[in-house]
């Protein structure tokens, strides 16, 4: 038995039992949350239609390979697979764009391949940096952001290199 097969059923029942113990209507909360999941999806899908169209064209035309080749020497130095170059470029700008690029990488390399896993971990360990900075400073009325952008990009770059490192550590480069 796989350990991760234990996690999901245990988590589901533990959360439900704990909630009932606290007299929370867990079923109503579950369905309400699921509804929110649908709203998220409704926002994601139109963006994905635009972005996956562009990403698929980009790959089919050979431009993706050219872009990856352009960044390959620098990325290999950091231990990052060059196939993920487009993901690195889109990630700080657009969350849905990153989702589209990552799902394209998983579809073409396989979700359990080295590149597929690195793409997933990159997506999970970084954020849409420029969007977040714009929203926070925009609503707080800040015009001088000082060292925020370089520090946030340092976090992103570390996240990308760490994603590749963590996948090599836990899964190796095979698969």
């Amino acid at each position: 038995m796989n350990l991760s097969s234990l996690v999901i059923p245990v988590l589901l029942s533990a959360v439900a039992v704990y909630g009932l113990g606290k007299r929370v209507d867990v079923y109503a909360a579950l369905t309400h949350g699921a509804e929110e999941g649908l709203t998220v999806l409704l926002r994601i899908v139109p963006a994905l239609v635009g972005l996956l169209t562009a990403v698929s064209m980009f790959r089919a035309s050979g431009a993706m390979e050219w872009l990856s080749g352009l960044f390959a020497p620098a990325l290999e130095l950091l231990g990052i697979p060059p196939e993920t170059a487009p993901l690195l470029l889109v990630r700080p700008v657009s969350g849905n764009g990153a989702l589209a690029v990552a799902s394209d990488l998983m579809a073409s390399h396989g979700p359990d391949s080295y590149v597929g896993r690195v793409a997933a971990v990159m997506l999970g360990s970084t954020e849409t940096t420029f969007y977040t900075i714009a929203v926070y400073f925009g609503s707080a009325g800040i015009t001088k952001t000082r060292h925020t952008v370089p520090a946030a990009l340092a976090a992103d770059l570390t996240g990308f290199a760490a994603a590749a490192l963590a996948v090599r550590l836990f899964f190796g480069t095979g698969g």
Partner: protein
Amino acid sequence: MTMAWVWTGMVTLSLLFGLATGNLDAVANAALEGARSAVELGVSMAGILCLWSGVMEVMNACGLSAGLARLFRPILRRLLPNACRDTETLAAVSANVSANLLGLGNAATPLGIRAARRMARGCGGVASDELCLLVVLNTASIQLLPATIASVRAAAGCRTPFDILPAVWLASALSVTAGLAAAWLLSRGRKER
């Protein structure tokens, strides 16, 4: 507007590359195939995404996020000592961190903005060291259960979509540490000059 430039650039580059390499048939097919696969991806993600959003909502209703927020208060007091003298800012920041941990992005952003607004009062549009730190914290991902990513993996045919969790946690921890360290070093460097 950024995405308008990115999208136009990608599509135009694809056209030029397609013309140059003679792959134009494949590019045309890929455009239609991409649009189709987007909806397919959305449908195959839907179940898992909704289930986990539901589970997170149950955890939230059980008071787990309030508990997490309490847990993070001592750390946040150290990280943002000036801002956390104001109890309302401290409450907003700790709720922001716990919502981020649970992956409740929709809840996290308004809380973080409330904190940022309070911290920006009377500073004349210049971000303080602590405000920079708060924003850097929010540009790094600290999600415990990345449900969207797991659902994309499942949609791509992965049978154990959550097996990347330890790798995500390790990479997130390193990334957050690097962001905070960079913010600290840069703010010190500028003061000494």
